[in-house]
């Protein structure tokens, strides 16, 4: 792994150069993959703090990539707010792309949910609102475009396969069948409101059973993109299900997008020994979950013990907010209220490697607030 000094964000990858870019937090995260041959894959979405546009689209514009033609897939790994912000606009722009989501999102229960909540809460950055926009784009593409239905994936689904020059495989390692049925039960029992029930915003579903983990392998170079899949020790679900089914065939990954912001629940002790190459690169984004900052110092220590090439898109997901009006600041101070902004500090980690060069090595470039993960061990805070 070679860290490039003075990186130039606008320099596009070569045709035979594999790229994995991780953006975040921006209230969530987004991953962009160059599959070589000028075709791209977008996974999840977050907004660029400066332009308030989806980070992927801002990046494509800088690289002069024609998002309307060159993006093959837009993947929504799961519909948590922190992974879906702006995905409606991304899909609208990526006209030639297929929309990929988990099988559970094609269920009538989920469609009922979207219909019930669509437009009900204009505020709140609801994931449902983003999905409504995706539905709208799908509907508009009915005219003369074959890409109408989303690509519903589950563990084992091959999204894309190119046999040679170079050999490319994009495959989903989750969600499992058990996760699909668990999600239907959750939609029905916890999310779809019953008659007479008091209204609220759409509740979040934990853990992220439906999250899509992807393996992207180009000319033998594998990247494991962990989404937010968690491991909470339930049979047939989470990382254990991925390991049980795929660790024999989908292993020796050269890099990983760490699952669930580096949290303890996003980790399984067998992921690294069974699915990763020694000292593979690792990338993650921070998040404020409840009152806990992710990753915690303990999480950072664990990840740094597994990889000496670990990077994070920003040291923290929040920054203190100062209201522009003195009278409001005074009022907040008197009330003892402090406000933080989520996603204001953003960064971008870019890994690249030429696939046709047998002696090639990965390079890493850091932009914005991105830094080496080990630096977080030197700073106070985040316990």
């Amino acid at each position, binding site marked *: 792994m070679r860290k490039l000094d003075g990186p130039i964000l606008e320099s596009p990858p070569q045709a035979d150069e594999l790229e994995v870019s991780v953006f975040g937090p*921006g*209230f969530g995260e987004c991953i962009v993959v160059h599959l070589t041959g000028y075709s791209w894959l977008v996974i999840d979405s977050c*907004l660029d*703090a400066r332009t*308030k546009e989806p980070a992927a689209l801002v990046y494509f514009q800088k690289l002069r990539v024609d998002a309307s033609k060159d993006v093959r897939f837009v993947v929504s790994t799961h519909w948590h707010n922190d992974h879906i*912000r702006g995905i409606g606009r991304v899909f609208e722009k990526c006209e030639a792309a297929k929309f990929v989501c988990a*099988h559970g999102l*094609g*269920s*009538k229960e989920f*469609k*009922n949910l*979207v*219909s*019930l909540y669509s437009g009900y*809460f*204009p*505020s*709140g*950055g609801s994931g449902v*609102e983003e999905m409504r926009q995706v*539905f709208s784009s*799908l*509907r508009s593409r*009915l005219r003369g475009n074959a890409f*109408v*239905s989303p690509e*519903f994936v589950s563990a084992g689904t091959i999204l894309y396969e190119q046999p040679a020059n170079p050999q490319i495989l994009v495959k989903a390692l989750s969600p499992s069948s058990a996760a*699909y049925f668990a999600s239907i039960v959750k939609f029905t029992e916890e999310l779809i*409101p*019953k*008659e*007479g*029930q*008091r*209204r*609220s*915003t759409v*509740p979040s579903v934990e853990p992220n059973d439906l999250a899509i983990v992807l393996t992207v392998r180009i000319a033998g170079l594998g990247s494991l993109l962990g989404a937010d899949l968690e491991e909470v020790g339930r049979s047939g679900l989470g990382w254990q299900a991925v390991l049980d089914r795929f660790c024999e065939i989908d292993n020796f990954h050269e890099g990983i997008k760490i699952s669930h912001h580096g949290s303890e629940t996003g980790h399984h002790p067998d992921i690294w020994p069974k699915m990763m190459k020694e000292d593979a690169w690792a990338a993650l984004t921070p998040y*404020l979950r*409840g*009152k806990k900052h992710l990753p915690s110092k303990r999480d950072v220590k664990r990840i740094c013990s597994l990889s000496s090439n670990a990077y994070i898109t920003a040291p923290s997901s*929040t920054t203190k*907010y100062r*209201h522009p*009006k003195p*009278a*409001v600041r005074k*009022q*907040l101070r008197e*009330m*003892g*209220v*402090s*406000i*933080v*902004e*989520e*996603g*204001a500090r953003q960064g971008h980690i870019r890994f690249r490697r030429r696939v046709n060069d047998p002696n090639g090595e990965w390079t890493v470039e850091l932009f914005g607030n991105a830094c080496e993960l080990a630096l977080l061990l030197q700073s106070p805070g985040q316990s």
Partner: protein
Amino acid sequence: MATNNLVVQSHSSTAPYGDTDSALATPICHHVLLNETTADFQMSLSDKFEDPGTTATYVAEMVEAFPQFNLLRLTNTLRRKPGGREPSAGLIEERSIILQQWDGVVLFRGKTTFTARLYEGYQDFPVKRAEIEVEEVADEQRDMILAGAPFSWIIGYRVRAGTRSRFSEIYFRRLPAWTKKEIEEAEITASKLDEEVGWTDPRESAAG
């Protein structure tokens, strides 16, 4: 049909409130007219007020339907004399200067505080997050501080009888319960989506 003109201060995110800067010390009021020819709110109100009833009924129902509004003045235009002044309903007139207005959603509640996300519209970014003392919410609304509950938070100045004071008002919206009709309509919309988009439930595809 009688025309009752409720003058309400727009404290709602759905109602236009214009510039909230303190330099514009003019409160923005929103007139809600309940008659056959008024466009504003006519559609939404017609469902709620089938029987116009008395003025008092209007007030009670308005307060129930739009708890986020502060009632300032009540004028019955039928009783207004040509060229005369508006009759007072006996309520003390006050005006508010809004410095900041947020829509909030409760994330979780602790013993003495609750944590919420704050938005100024759907496109608001970066999103703000605050931890607020439960005691900042009126006693009768504290049972509504639940995960997912939406609320409004206004900080501003209130001018009343020549005096000005700073205020913070957190108001939880007492939203109507889901109805059977809404749930059934959502099912129909979801089915239409299947037909229009050709998007079928994976279980049906597998069966077919």
